Structure formats: structure tokens, C-alpha cells
């Protein structure tokens, strides 16, 4: 395997410093090189149904008596990390786990609303592992690995069993059996749910299992501790550098393997449905240490979020997509129409989704609905503050079904909307707008969830995942738990068994250099004495990305962004101001350090979006559409996962392509007929 720590780590901190003296030549970054193709060396062949069983059988095992000699670092305590930490500790490994929150229970998985898919076929409606596999590959617009997706579908069944045994209070029928619903336009009812709080309940299940292991002394939990770098010794991930957010102490932690379960990077856009402190630092630092970053441009945009109410907006709130079942989406026909919605007569309204997509109407897929909203707002027909919104009108539904029926279906969503906007959706149409919601891209991993740095694993949203270019609803929770409870514990054992346990000397140059870089960078941020707040840069970067690398991307826009980002990065290092000291809780310092990484990651996202001159899933290139304006995939050229190798900040990365084979689900153009 190629990879490993490439350039001397001691150089890089200085390179960041040199940027403060002036912007680097931006266009150079787009001149990426193409490196060796990437092959997933761990995926077994043979019939797809047998691959996971075969891999597990072929994997080496660690003797139970030897497990406690192995230390595993798990960063993050969401569904993937919490499940992995608990399971590894149950198996007997020594786990050291980290989260930046004050408690492992607060990871952002908690905010997932809808549900979790599993091929249980409890409804006897024709569901099967094969069908879930098929739906997921197709839903991902044929940019995911078949073997991984099939394994995900197989494991989905066990997840439900596991969660029920933990006491997760899933919705049930009167007979006491589990209820399911259909989700995301799938034709079977395979989504298990706990009202609108499925993520919360699943996370608490994992958190409780983890808490049991913490209390038993098998997991050393380090809350309010943020990973700031990866320690790579002799090409192997051997630990992390982390900062205690309360005391400011920078410490090194060593292990035989490091697992990143740190979630996605949606916050690079500033405004997203992610938690405010969700960040990309762990995966980006790992990328800088040699882990390839795959498909960074695959980001998912959710069409039904509450629009921003002004410049003060700090984050966006998602509302269940189910609202589109009964709500009608419209904007005024004329640009700049500022009349109240009730004053706009029927004939002056444009129900644009019903007009453009007469057969699917308001129920077109997420990406179509999102882009259409952007288009009408770009035409100046958007509604609400800043013109960034469209109406989702329930007047017809209330007239047809009655207010009580509408309330029974959507009461809690209406309440949430009213709490935030102070508008009564029973009387005034809701305003909605798309928002960044999930990132399909992430660290490249093989079938074993191992990155290109030996000993470094990435699970959950942090890896480039099983969702291809687009994730189906209720599949994120499934993947996080599959990775954490079932996949990683099996594959990690194989790695640990093959690599004997040995100590890393604390004074190893790779360790001291990494620590020095981390401290240097924090020192630079604190001593910069600039005049702009960290957030002001984050907002600016977010707006740029939203405009040029958001719902629709074009070559000119992306090139513009690639020119602007290095300049913004240089300005950041010149002008950012971080008050306070590094020796205590300093939330500005935390933010600034994360934004510094966003300023590098954003560049890679734009480059990836630029190089992928096709439209697929969440990635829509304006140059690649069908005559009637739909996304056009270009399988001959782009049927691969793009894994990028870091070569230095602002210097062009190397592209490694992993070709995707489709032997079971044959690529077709998505159609809405």
C-alpha cells in the first residue's frame, strides 16, 4: 500500500506560516497529478452473498487473553464510535476514547430524525438483503463499492436485534411487534423508527453500552478532548495528539490502532444541519499524514430545511422530508414580488415542481427539489428574508383533509417550525430552503475500513462510505452502527493479530515533531493579533462554497473558488484574531483551529468537483446534464472513487482512482417515471 507520512512533518507547520506572507499561486492547485490506481486489497471475491462470511473467516483472530494488551484509540462517540468503543471493550481490548463534547452522549448522531433501514422483511412486502443492497447501490448513483454495500445490507438485520436488546424504544404496534414505515421513495417498508428521534435513541443505546464499559474500566473516556493530529511512526498510525479543552494541555496518546469516527465535514459550508462544533480536523489531519481523501465533492443537500432568517444565522434546522407528501411548493411568478403569500392570487403563483415535473410533482428526489428551489431563487423569485426560500403550502391539504388530519400527521413539525419562525404554518405557508446535510465523501477505506495509513481506520460518516454519490434516507444510522458494532470489530482484530504489540518511545522524533507542529499552530493562532474573528472567515468560506460548490457546480465557478480559497486562507493567517490563552477553555481557539483546516479541505472539495466533470448523485455539474436539464452521469470516464493524496498545503494533490465494478446491479440512468 502506498501512503504513509510523506513529507517531513516538521516542514509543514512552517509552510502554513509562510502562507501568512502572501497568497500562493492558486491555479497551480488544479494541476493535480494522476498516481497509481488504487485497489481494495481486502475485498474477497466469489459470490457477493458469501464475501463477508469469507472475510470474517479468513481474518486472523486475537486470543482473548492477549486482547487487553492491545490499546485501541477511538476518536468520536457517535453511532459509529460509540458502538465501536463499546464492542471492542466488550471483546477485551483496552480502549481509549475521545470526544470534544462534555459527554459522549452528545455526538451529533443524536439529531437524526427519521429512522434506520434494515432488511428484516417484517412486513412481508418483498424486502430482502438483496433488495436493500440493490436500492442502496442504485440510490448512490453507482458510485459505491458493491461488496461493501452488500455487507451493509446483511448486517442491517443484526443491528435491529442488537438495539432492541439494549432497550432502544422503537415504535411498536399494538401486538407488541416493531413498526416500520417507508422512507425516501423506497417501495418497501423497512425503516424502523422511534418517533422523530431515532438517532437519539440509537445513540443513547450505544452510549449506555459504552458507559457500562467506562464504569468497568475497560474504556478510558476522555470527554472535552479534541484530536489535533495523528502520530505516524514508521508508516504506521500509532497514536494521536489531543488537547484537553478545559486545561489546554496537549498530550500524546499511543495505541496499536487508531479509529476515526469523527463524522462528516458538512460544516465546511458554515451553515449546515450539522452541530456547531462538528468538524473535519481529525480526518483532515489524518489526510495530511497520508490517508487518502475520497470523493470530497459528494455532499448531500436536503431540500426541506428552515431558511435562514438573517445574517446572524448560526445553523440550519432540518424538517422531515415527509412534509412534501401533502405540502405544495410554490413561488410568485414575478421576481421581486414582496406581497404576503395570502395576497398573491392563485394565477400569479408558480407551482414550479408540479409544472416542470408533472408526473412526480412535489415528490421529486432530494437533489432535484433542491436545485429547482435554487433556480427560482436565483431568478429573484425567492421569498422571505434575503429571498432565500420557497413556500411549502398546506392550505390545500387542510382544505382537503381537515386541520385535524394535517395536525395528526405533521403536528410536531409544525410546532417546531412555529417555535423557530414564529409563523403559524396552519395559516401561513411554510418557507423552506435546501441545506447541507450529509457528506458522502471522506477518508478512503478498503473493505476492512482501513485507510491508506496502516493502523488507521475510519468508520461512519468519516469514511467515504457505502453511499456512493448520494445517501438514501435512513441509511446513515444503519451504516454508522454497522461499522461500529459489526464490521470494524471483526476487521480490526485481523490487523492487530498481524501486527505485534510494541511500544512507541515517547521521544521518537515523529512524536515530538507532531506535538511541536500542533503547539506551533495554536501559538500562531493565539499570537496573531489580527482584526477579524474566526467566524467571519468561516462565514465567508461557507458562502463561497455554497455558491460555487453547492447545489450546482460549474467549471468557471469552481475555478473561481479555487482562486479565492488560497487568498482567503492567507488572509486568515494574516488577520485572524483569537483572544485569550491556550491554557484554559478557549472556544475561539478551538474554532480558529478547525477553520484553518476547512480552508484547506474546501480547496480539495472544489478540485474534486472540478475534476469530476459529470453529474452524479449529490454532485451536479451544469456542463453535464440531459437535454431536459437532468443530471447526466458519465460512467465510461468516471466510474471510480477519486482518492486524493496530500502533497502539501496549496500544492496539487495526487489522484488515485479506484475503479468500481458492477457485477450485480447494472448502472442505469436514474429516471423518475
Amino acid at each position, binding site marked *: 500500500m502506498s501512503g504513509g507520512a510523506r513529507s517531513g512533518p516538521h516542514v509543514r507547520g512552517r509552510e502554513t506560516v509562510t502562507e501568512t506572507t502572501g497568497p500562493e499561486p492558486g491555479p497551480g492547485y488544479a494541476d493535480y497529478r494522476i498516481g497509481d490506481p488504487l485497489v481494495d486489497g481486502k475485498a474477497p471475491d466469489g459470490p457477493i452473498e458469501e464475501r463477508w462470511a469469507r472475510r470474517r473467516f479468513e481474518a486472523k483472530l486475537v486470543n482473548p487473553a492477549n486482547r487487553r494488551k492491545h490499546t485501541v484509540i477511538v476518536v468520536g462517540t457517535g453511532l459509529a464510535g460509540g458502538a465501536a468503543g463499546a*464492542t471492542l471493550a*466488550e471483546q477485551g481490548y483496552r480502549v481509549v476514547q475521545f470526544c470534544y*463534547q*462534555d*459527554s*459522549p*452522549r*452528545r*455526538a*451529533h448522531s*443524536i*439529531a437524526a430524525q427519521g429512522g434506520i433501514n434494515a432488511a428484516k422483511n417484517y412486513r412481508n412486502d418483498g424486502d430482502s438483503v438483496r433488495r436493500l443492497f440493490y436500492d442502496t447501490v442504485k440510490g448512490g448513483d453507482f458510485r459505491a463499492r458493491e461488496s461493501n454495500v452488500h455487507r451493509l445490507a446483511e448486517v442491517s438485520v443484526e443491528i435491529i*436485534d*442488537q438495539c*432492541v*436488546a*439494549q*432497550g432502544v424504544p422503537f*415504535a*411498536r404496534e*399494538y401486538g*407488541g*411487534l*416493531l413498526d416500520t414505515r417507508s422512507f425516501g421513495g423506497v417501495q418497501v417498508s423497512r425503516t424502523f423508527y*422511534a*418517533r422523530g*428521534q431515532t438517532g*437519539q435513541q440509537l445513540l443513547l443505546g450505544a452510549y*449506555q*453500552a459504552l*458507559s457500562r464499559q*467506562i464504569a468497568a474500566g475497560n474504556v478510558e*473516556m476522555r*470527554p472535552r478532548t479534541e484530536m489535533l493530529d495523528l502520530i505516524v511512526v514508521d508508516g504506521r498510525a500509532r497514536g494521536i495528539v489531543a488537547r484537553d479543552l*478545559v486545561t489546554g494541555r496537549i498530550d500524546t496518546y499511543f495505541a496499536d490502532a487508531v479509529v476515526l469516527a469523527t463524522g462528516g465535514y458538512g460544516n465546511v459550508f458554515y451553515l449546515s444541519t450539522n*452541530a*456547531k*462544533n462538528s468538524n473535519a480536523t481529525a480526518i483532515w489531519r489524518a489526510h495530511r499524514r497520508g490517508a487518502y481523501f475520497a470523493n470530497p465533492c459528494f455532499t448531500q443537500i436536503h431540500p426541506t430545511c428552515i431558511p435562514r*432568517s*438573517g445574517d*446572524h*444565522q*448560526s*445553523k440550519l*434546522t432540518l424538517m422531515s422530508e415527509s412534509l412534501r407528501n401533502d405540502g405544495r411548493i410554490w413561488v410568485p411568478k414575478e421576481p421581486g414580488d414582496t406581497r404576503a403569500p395570502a395576497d398573491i392570487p392563485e394565477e400569479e403563483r408558480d407551482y414550479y415542481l408540479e409544472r416542470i415535473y408533472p408526473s412526480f410533482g412535489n415528490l421529486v428526489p432530494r437533489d432535484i427539489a433542491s436545485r429547482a428551489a435554487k433556480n427560482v431563487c436565483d431568478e429573484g423569485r425567492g421569498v422571505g*428574508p434575503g429571498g432565500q426560500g420557497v413556500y411549502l403550502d398546506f392550505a390545500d391539504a387542510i382544505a382537503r383533509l381537515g386541520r385535524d388530519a394535517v395536525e395528526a400527521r405533521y403536528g410536531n413539525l409544525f410546532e417546531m417550525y412555529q*417555535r*423557530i419562525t414564529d409563523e403559524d404554518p396552519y395559516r401561513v405557508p411554510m418557507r423552506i430552503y435546501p441545506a447541507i446535510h450529509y457528506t458522502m465523501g471522506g477518508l478512503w477505506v478498503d473493505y476492512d475500513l482501513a485507510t491508506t495509513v496502516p493502523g488507521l481506520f475510519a468508520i461512519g460518516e468519516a469514511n467515504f462510505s457505502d453511499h456512493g454519490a448520494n445517501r438514501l434516507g435512513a441509511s446513515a444510522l444503519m451504516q454508522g452502527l454497522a461499522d461500529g458494532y*459489526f464490521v470494524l*470489530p471483526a476487521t480490526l482484530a485481523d490487523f492487530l493479530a498481524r501486527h505485534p504489540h510494541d511500544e512507541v518511545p515517547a521521544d521518537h522524533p515523529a512524536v515530538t515533531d507532531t506535538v511541536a507542529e500542533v503547539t506551533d499552530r495554536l501559538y500562531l493562532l493565539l499570537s496573531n493579533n489580527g482584526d477579524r*474573528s474566526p467566524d*467571519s472567515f468561516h462565514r465567508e468560506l461557507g458562502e463561497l462554497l455554497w455558491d460555487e460548490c453547492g447545489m450546482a457546480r460549474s467549471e468557471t465557478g469552481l475555478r473561481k473558488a479555487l482562486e479565492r480559497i488560497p487568498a482567503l486562507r492567507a488572509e486568515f493567517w494574516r488577520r485572524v*484574531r*483569537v*483572544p485569550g490563552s491556550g491554557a*484554559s*477553555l*478557549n*472556544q*475561539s481557539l478551538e474554532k480558529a483551529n478547525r477553520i484553518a483546516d476547512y480552508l484547506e479541505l474546501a480547496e480539495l472539495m472544489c478540485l474534486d468537483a472540478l475534476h469530476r466533470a459529470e453529474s452524479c448523485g449529490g454532485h451536479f455539474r451544469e456542463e453535464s446534464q440531459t437535454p431536459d436539464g437532468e443530471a447526466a452521469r458519465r460512467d465510461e470516464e468516471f466510474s471510480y472513487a477519486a482518492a486524493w493524496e496530500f502533497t502539501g498545503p496549496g500544492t496539487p494533490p495526487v489522484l488515485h482512482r479506484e475503479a468500481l465494478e458492477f457485477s450485480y446491479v447494472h448502472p442505469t440512468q436514474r429516471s423518475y417515471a
Partner: protein
Amino acid sequence: MKLTLRIWRQSGPEDPGALRTYEVDGITPEMSFLEMLDTLNEELIERGEEPVAFDHDCREGICGACGMVINGEPHGPDRTTTCQLHMRHFEDGATVDIEPWRAAAFPVVKDLVVDRSSFDRVIGSGGYITAPTGSAPEAHATPVPKAAADAAFEHAECIGCGACVAACPNGSAMLFTSAKVVHLNSLPQGAPERETRVLDMVETMDAEGFGGCTNTGMCTTVCPKGIPLSSISTMNREYLRALRKGA
């Protein structure tokens, strides 16, 4: 809107701390309470002062990270989390007092940030069902009566924000602890550990320095998730039952 804020500033656990007065202008009714504080913090950073530290994360009312006592009320005048409180609940020119959660078991870390790790230790002492990964029976092997499932869910909604402790005149964590006890003890899956769970969790709760319950009911009036007072009564019943059984 223009507001006068009196905010508790405390540089660390050893600092005695004090209320400090700030003026903020340009606040709009659509802002959330935390966005109002963001606005203040941006100004403070520009002036080179240290911004006010406060815990927050999801900002959609589910992670339980945020929480401050606003004019004497945990999470402020609306029964929701601080992040979901909007400025339209305040009048132009008003003075707003902002203090951290106050409890011996929640020591102040900095400004409005407190250490709630005592909650984690309460959960760790029994707030789980022992079901190691892979050992689970088929999900439909044990049907759960809908009433039990609904009761479990109602109590499982707790977000662990700590408002109950902040509101209680005794700094008691009974509502938090009982929510988890009732969630798990309502389910057949939780039955094998029913007695040890409640005994161990109450023991830890007491050892962490939370006060006792005097049934004032303040906890439920501020709980953003509406965990009912009967939850405490049910836990008392479970506790006495467990003691009787000599678990």
C-alpha cells in the same frame, strides 16, 4: 432590539466569579438566544476581549449541551432548550441575567460552562441493559406491549441537559436518574437488571453530591422534554421494591 446583559463571568473553577454587565444592540426577534450571545461574542473578539464561554452544539434542541439560567429560569422563559429560545420572548431595552447551572455536582468550568460528568457516572453505574454486541436474540423474540414501549420512549427522551438539577432548590438529580430507570425498567429487556439498576444508580446519584428530592416539582416545569414528575415516584417505588427483594 437593545439589551442589557448581566452575565456570570468566571475564568476558572478557582475564580470566585461575578456578574458583568454588557450592552448589545442590533438584536432581532428572529435570533435565537445563542445567536444573540454569538453577536455579543463577535463584538468582544473585535474589542480584543475574551468571549463568553457557553456549551452548545446541535442547536436544534436534542443534544442537551446548551443550558443557562436566564432571569432565574433554566433555559429561560419558554419551556425549551436555550438554543431553541428566541429573542422575541424578550422586550427591547430589557435587562437579562444569565447565570450557569448551579449545583455542587456541576462545578463551573468557565463562565456559563459547567461540568456535568456526574450524569455520565450515574448512567455508567446501571443506566444500561447488559447486551454485549452479537449476543442479541432476534428482535421479535420478545414482543413489548405498546403501553410499555410508549412509557419507555417517554422517559428515554431525556437529553441530559441538567435543567432539572439547575431548577431544583436542592440540586437534586432525581428526575434525570428516574427517567433512565423508568425507561429501562419498563421494558422486558431491562427486567433482569431491574433491581440492581435502580439501587446502583441511586447510590451513585447520592455519592455525586446531588441533593435529595423534596417533591417540589420544579424539575418537571423546566424540563424541555417534558419528563413527568410521576417518573420520580415510579423510581421510588422501584427502589423500595428492590430493597425489599434484597437485591
